[in-house]
């Protein structure tokens, strides 16, 4: 009898959700839930074809029906739902799977509704992590799990750093700073009850909370209009000079955007284009070949390429199939190792000279003839929506931001209720801390430390 499983199930009490397979072009996407509330959360949104709720689903059976918006009753998508009970599932927790086929927008909407109902978006690799912690995966897989967590986290960190430069992040930071300032005022009144400090009146507190809530609601509304999705996942094309990087960019875009010549080093800057891969916006960047150079203009280009490379979610490494691997190729292969990357062997229309057995998984294309491009698009979509990159794909990054904003809005509404009920500062602080931490979760900041910093910098307190 293994008691460990029970104890660890107790130890992880929240329910996580994530997209688990790629939708492809009009294909089916699966949202997976794992944790004690998995079935309840899915069933809360699910209605059978006749509009009735599904009470007691049989495990592993697929039920046909619709996901409906809990407030408006509108159909979000037509789905198949199945549930699994612990421990008979991948994670050994209770799980639910919702298969939807309406493309990325309904999928995002369903995930958003699940989060509102109490699910948390899974961290990179978290399903695998839970499966392992519950004893589902073999011990020999432990190292692979560790590597996955590390790789996903680094990618996530890059995505987060990039996201912090955006306009949305500035708005979230602004909201959070106001929350922290308000909390500092409340905390000063609590911890320095005897001091001669300007105490906010209930009316001032109520006005600030209302303003913060309005600003947060506005943020959520702008998200619904799709404004936040402009920042796509970053895919960077790398490769030694003249392997056909710019030709590939043009082929993917279907137009001649970058300068293409047969002279190495023609692309002297980072060229960026937006495109749609399987419904996911992608910022595709062509870089100057990364190589030592004396040319000042080219050197600057190389430096910018290095930055783009460090920031990228996905690397598209282009090799020339018509020439043997060079030392430069091998150096780039080493840099791509451990990161989400696709190896592309270009010039398939020419005689093959590269040893494919050395490369592992790769996609053969010809940027000139267009051969292999559909397979490449599918490979990119798989990477973005499927495995390692899923959590930092733009779709999920923006979902995270929206989930955070919605949680903050809920906490602010709760704060207003607390205020109406005559709750005092220490109770308001519970709600406002929840709001600040919801927004801080995007950047990993904790309100408590900052509030104390703010308290001492803004208020003259102490003996």
């Amino acid at each position, binding site marked *: 009898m293994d008691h*460990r499983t029970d104890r*660890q199930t107790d*130890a*992880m*009490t*929240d329910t996580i959700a994530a997209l688990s397979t790629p939708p492809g072009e009009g294909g089916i996407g699966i949202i997976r839930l794992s944790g004690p509330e998995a079935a309840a959360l899915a069933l809360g949104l699910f209605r059978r074809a006749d509009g009735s709720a599904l009470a007691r689903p049989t495990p592993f059976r697929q039920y046909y029906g619709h996901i409906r918006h809990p407030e408006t009753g509108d159909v979000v998508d037509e789905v198949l739902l199945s549930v699994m009970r612990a421990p008979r599932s991948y994670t050994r927790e209770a799980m639910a799977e919702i298969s939807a086929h309406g493309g990325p927008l309904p999928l995002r909407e369903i995930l958003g509704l699940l989060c509102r109902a109490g699910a948390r978006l899974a*961290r990179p*690799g978290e399903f695998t*992590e839970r499966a*392992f*912690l519950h*004893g589902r995966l073999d*011990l020999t897989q*432990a*190292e692979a*799990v*560790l*590597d996955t*967590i*590390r790789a996903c*986290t680094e990618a996530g960190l890059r995505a987060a750093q990039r996201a912090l430069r955006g306009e949305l992040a500035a708005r979230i930071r602004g909201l959070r700073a106001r929350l922290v300032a308000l909390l500092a005022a409340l*905390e000063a009144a*609590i*911890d*320095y*009850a*005897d*001091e*001669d400090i300007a105490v906010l009146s209930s009316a001032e507190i109520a006005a600030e909370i209302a303003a913060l809530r309005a600003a947060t609601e506005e943020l959520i509304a702008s998200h619904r209009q799709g404004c936040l999705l402009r920042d796509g996942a970053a895919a960077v094309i790398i490769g030694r000079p003249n392997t056909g990087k710019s030709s590939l960019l043009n082929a993917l875009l279907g137009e001649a955007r970058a300068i293409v010549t047969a002279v190495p080093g023609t692309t002297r800057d980072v060229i960026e284009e937006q495109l749609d891969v399987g419904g996911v916006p992608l910022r595709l960047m062509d870089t100057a070949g990364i190589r030592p150079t004396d040319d000042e203009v080219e050197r600057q280009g190389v430096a910018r390429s290095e930055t783009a490379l460090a920031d990228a979610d996905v690397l598209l490494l282009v090799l020339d199939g018509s020439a043997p691997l060079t030392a430069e190729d091998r150096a780039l292969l080493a840099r791509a190792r451990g990161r989400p990357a696709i190896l592309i062997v270009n010039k398939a229309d020419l005689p093959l000279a590269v040893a494919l057995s050395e490369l592992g998984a790769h996609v053969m294309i010809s940027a000139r003839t267009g051969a292999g491009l559909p397979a490449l698009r599918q490979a990119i979509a798989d990477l973005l929506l499927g495995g390692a990159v899923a959590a930092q794909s733009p779709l999920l990054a923006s979902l995270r931001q929206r989930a955070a904003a919605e949680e903050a809005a809920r906490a602010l509404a*709760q704060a207003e209720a607390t205020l109406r*009920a*005559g*709750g*005092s*500062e*220490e*109770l308001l*602080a*519970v*709600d406002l*801390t*929840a709001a600040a*931490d919801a927004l801080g979760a995007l950047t*990993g900041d904790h309100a*408590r430390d900052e*509030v*104390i910093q703010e*308290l*001492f910098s803004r208020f*003259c*307190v*102490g*003996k």
Partner: protein
Amino acid sequence: MYNGRVNTWDVIVVGGGHAGCEAASAAARRGARTLLVALRRDRVAHLPCNCSIGGPAKAHLVREIAALGGLMPRIADAAMTHARLLNTSKGPAVRAIRAQVDKALYPALMRARLADEPNLAMLEGEAAAVLVEDGAAAGIAMADGRRFPARAVILATGTFLNARTFVGDVTEDAGRHGEPPARRLSASLAALGLRLGRLKTGTTPRLDAATIDYARCERQEPSPTPLAFQFAWQRPALPDRPLLPCHLTYTTAETHAIIRANLSRSALYGGLISGRGPRYCPSIEDKIVRFADRERHQVFLEREGWDSDLIYPLGISTSLPADAQDAFVRSIPGLERAVILRPGYAVEYDYLPPDQLTAGLETKAVRGLFCAGQLNGTSGYEEAAGQGLLAGINAVQYLHGDAPVVLGRDQAYLGVLVDDLVTRGLTEPYRMLTSRAEHRLLLRQDNADLRLADLGAALGLLPAGDYARFRAKRAAIDAELDRLASTPPGESGVDGAGLASAADWLRRPASTYARLRETDPVAATVPEEVAEQVETAVKYAGYICRQQRQVAQQRRLEAHPLPDDFPYQQVRGLSREAIDHLTQVRPRTVGQAARIPGVTPADISLLLVWLSAKKRAAVSRETR
């Protein structure tokens, strides 16, 4: 406690301040033959700063000390000259007693208490070195060459290590005004491989009570109802003399001009002091520089005792030269003719960065060597006393080979205090604040007994009679909560249409237990201290639940212990920075690891996976 060697003490405590007194008393009462070494016997339990005890978070600490059977609450109650309840307009979690005590009576009562302790002896002199054998504390050597063997040593040296005081540009090697510092102990600690840092703090000038014009000040009356730090079940003995009022005045534009004109002569601004000072205890120089737009600052005039001539003007701590102190004090209404009996001064001292301690307050470098109080970088009497109590408790745990007593962050402010110190280190003196406690609604001054009295009794520090009365109170609370939950509102005589029980009625914002007493015959007989707990438990339940959800993740991680010798270098994927921090702090649980600055959520995932893999490998080896 018989230890087989007549000349060996079980525990030696160095330092007779608030930490040292609690440590020595706790160790002795737990059966250890204890020696308290103090630089001056007549300064034991002295109150070198102001005469107040308590306030938000600090009163909470004192109540926790009461529940654990410590001394500070008992002595403070008996020496109380003034008391008020703060935050009365806010909820019970942040209400706090602030008291003033008689500065002569408090130490006298404490010294008498220590003298009555059969297992405790006191020695006057300067400890110069900690003796160590086989990596464990083995006693102390005195400055005069005498050596005292011991099985455990507690350092509670306050601000005395390599201390310098500053009055303007006049500096003096002194631990406090007119008292010599301890010069040699710092070197002994450094030789044991312990790091030392530098901190500073300040104090105000002391005024002659007879030279103050109280008519020009606001008068603050003490609370009309008696307040005590001890719980009712401890039957606190309060003084039979009437409580004193407190007076309040304010600095003026002229005060600020005088201070500005003399800034370059301040030790703090003249660059003489390198240690970091606390933001929460700013000097008046600090206040005027950093908050230049403020027109006035509060000055509380606290009388240092019923029979004392000294007034402590709270709010104007300073290290300006004496003539400048004279000038600015006399620009304050009510103090125009005030005579300074002793100038304010700043003190700079060595402290032991507390990330070198375990959660049991034992040094990681030397077994059986414990540290408590301002030496660990804290400020405040209450923070010191709490650490002293825990160090005294844990020195005896160590003697018995038992695991140290470590309080959780959801259990006590004392737990928050120690966890913050040993996990996060510090860059300025650490003062307890309610905002540091993420479980603030649970950690109330009114329920410290419910949180800690069982432990106090188990450790042998709470007298049996007190503990029996506490248990009766707890049983009454439980019974009344059960009764309210099963009584229909109508039976209690309240309008609870649509509600299932009187408890549901009480949960409403407008409901009070006092109102319930009017119509519910059982409630009318419930004692006040029970009624208070019942009302709070019912009214706070929803918020406590929300606060618990916020910290759910942290609590889950606390369930995963990390052994002391955990091989962080071997965990695949951990960043270099994380390995360094984890190796330095040596967290006890994954939860504590998560609170270390520089350790990321990914690092925590890696630790969990690695721990799980090791555990399974061990299980599969056993079952093979």
